């Protein structure tokens, strides 16, 4: 029994953190945000040098064959730096879907190119996480039609993974889909609406249970979104503690006032157990299948709640400065807010958790 990160895992996360601290500073985020740039080429290239896009892809396809916990640690680092690069859709959900439901030929075609960073893949599962404003995606053989809202990692994507309303998973090349960017509060990631009109698709049909496969990849996406929130919220807490230890009023640092100290303590007390929940849910995906779906729902929902709490309190600790653009704290606030709604709202995923447990 060892509920802790291995040394290699700590090293992996620290390597990504160091890279992002070096190359993805707040100035970079600001300039990307000003240009609606959510795939910063130099940051993405540097991450690709480390093999990050191939984290979950098998070594025989040029990936590094790691597990979802490793992907979650990377996502945490990306969230901590509000990094402007694709990951959750392109490097987690899409490769897992191809791995689990693709034929050997499909894997040969797509996985090496995803692993090498040569292509990125947008992901649309909107019909299965609480459809809104969609025209449900219909599929007949290798043709899909309809529209999908809130597809992830859409900017400059070469390929799109789309879940049809019937649960089938299809890959559609960028030339066969119309992509409309949607602009959310979070300028660090791209989401969009995908329009398919009798689009040619590559149907990922090599799975015995497409519903279970779809649920599995959505679960993985939820864990990784939760990890992203964990990282973003931890940065907000760290910034709040640092600010409370420096800022002086009434001839004292404000962190010595209990009103401020207790806000910091409450954030830490809420956030620290979240780390264990994310670790467990990510580990369960690979090692404890009977717990995987339930804990993925809980990780997603609970991090959404705690993330919002921390985002709000950390902003308050900064006083008026927290509300301004000067500190840039709002980039983390907004990332946490987008994460809350992605891949199923807290209420939606908790309802799914009730179904998983046979309560309804």
């Amino acid at each position, binding site marked *: 029994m*060892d*509920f*802790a990160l291995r040394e290699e895992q700590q090293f992996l996360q620290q390597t990504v953190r160091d890279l992002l601290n070096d190359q993805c500073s707040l100035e970079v985020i600001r300039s990307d945000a000003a240009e609606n740039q959510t795939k910063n080429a130099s940051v993405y290239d540097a991450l690709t040098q480390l093999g990050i896009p191939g984290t979950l892809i098998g070594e025989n396809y040029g990936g590094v064959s790691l597990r979802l916990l490793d992907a979650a640690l990377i996502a945490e680092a990306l969230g901590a730096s509000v990094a402007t690069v694709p990951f959750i859709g392109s490097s987690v959900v899409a490769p897992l879907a191809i791995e689990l439901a693709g034929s050997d030929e499909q894997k040969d075609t797509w996985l090496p190119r995803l692993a090498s960073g040569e292509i990125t893949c947008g992901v649309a599962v909107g019909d299965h996480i609480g459809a809104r404003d969609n025209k449900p995606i219909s599929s007949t053989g290798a043709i899909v039609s309809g529209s999908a809202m809130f597809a992830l990692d859409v900017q400059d994507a070469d390929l799109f993974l789309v879940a049809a309303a019937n649960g089938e998973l299809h890959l559609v090349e960028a030339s066969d889909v119309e992509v409309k960017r949607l602009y959310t509060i979070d300028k660090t990631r791209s989401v969009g609406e995908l329009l398919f009109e009798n689009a040619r698709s590559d149907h990922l049909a090599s799975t015995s249970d497409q519903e279970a496969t779809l649920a599995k990849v959505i679960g993985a996406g939820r864990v990784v979104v939760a990890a992203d929130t964990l990282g973003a919220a931890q940065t907000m807490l760290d910034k709040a503690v640092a600010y409370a*230890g420096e800022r002086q009023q009434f001839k004292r640092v404000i962190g010595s*006032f*209990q009103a401020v100290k*207790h806000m910091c303590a409450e954030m830490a007390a809420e956030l620290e157990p979240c780390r264990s*929940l994310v670790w467990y849910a990510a580990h369960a995906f690979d090692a404890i299948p009977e717990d995987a779906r339930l804990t993925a729902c809980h990780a997603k929902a*609970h991090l959404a709640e705690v993330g919002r709490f921390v985002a709000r309190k950390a902003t308050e600790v900064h006083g008026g400065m927290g509300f301004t653009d000067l500190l840039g704290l709002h980039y983390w606030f907004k990332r946490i807010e987008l994460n809350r709604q992605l891949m199923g709202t807290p209420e939606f995923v908790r309802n799914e958790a009730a179904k998983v447990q046979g309560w309804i």
Partner: protein
Amino acid sequence: MDLEYSSEYQTFRDDLHEFLAEHKHLSPGAFAPRPTGREEKKDGPNPAQRWQQLLIEHGYAARTIPREYGGFGAEPDPLKNHIIAEEFAKARVRPGHSGDNRLVPTVLELGTEEQKRWLVPPSIRGEMTWCQGYSEPGSGSDLASLSTRAEVDGDDFVINGQKIWTSGAQYADMMFCLVRTEPDAPKHQGISYLVFSMDTPGIEVRPLVTMTGEATFNEVFFTDARVPKNQIIGKRGEGWFVANNTLKHERQGLGDPHQAENRFHEIEELMQNENVDGEPIMSNPAHRDRLLQLQGRMLAMKYNGMRVLTAQRKHEEPGLPRWIIKLQGCELNHQMAAMAIDALGELGTLYHRSDHIRAGGMWQQRFMMDLGLIIGGGTAQIQKNMIGERALGLPKEPKVEDKPA
């Protein structure tokens, strides 16, 4: 990350299963109040004491206490402790104890050889029970300002003053107590830690009825109570250090995630079995969502506990994950009780052995007791100070004055 148990621990768990299956019927019941030496020792060992003895013999109680002091004498192993706690909770069997989880470790760590032999063996057999004399009417969160005096007179300390919030004082054989022996020293340096019999002349116990309607606490008054000078643990004036050792052991017990998990399953059953307008409460989405929110918190605390356990096994300081357990765990338990009451609606308010009462009014009892636990053992606000100062490194509040009252 490896959540499998190695064969050593799997065997340990299997043996424990076997033991529980074979001996479970001898257990006095998980929730029966723990009988005390004071009431029942005259007639030889009572069932609880016999159960405790059986557990010690098999290494499921007083596990790491050396054999020479009546324990099982095993090497400390947090994972085995965890397995024992988990399996007893699952089987709903009364777990063993280590005498008193505050006093015994303190005596073993800081007591003299003579004191260890005097106090530890009867305590772990359940023949010598304890109450804690720390808080005073004027010294709660600011415990170090305590003013109960002990003056030396010949071979004795003579104690005068008052303690409050003394759980179990009406049953306990003995008290471990903080008294001021050096009134002129700075407040943290003038305190001593004494142990003495509750039968000592000059001690009066008055029950303190709480909001639950029960007298779980007491006030204890001292009028010229004489305690031999050798009944001090540690040196004169070092009682604060000794007491912090005790508090360290006490805090580890409050907010235990096992309890939250058991409660969660109880509420799950309750919501499936109780009906409103002929439909199970579980079919109401508002109640269900609340239960799911608590499940999420409960799981986070459960896995946080596994992280703490892993650190302890590696002899690492767990840090923040451990600092938050009392605050978060007690709050979670309280919220669970509140949720169960709300699920029961008007039925949830039944108490005093009323008709239609559910589970004997347990949820109301817990709801109130948990509020007591949020306040006791270091209030939630004191916990937040500790998290802020010790875990996050924020500065202390400037002191107004630092002399005893």
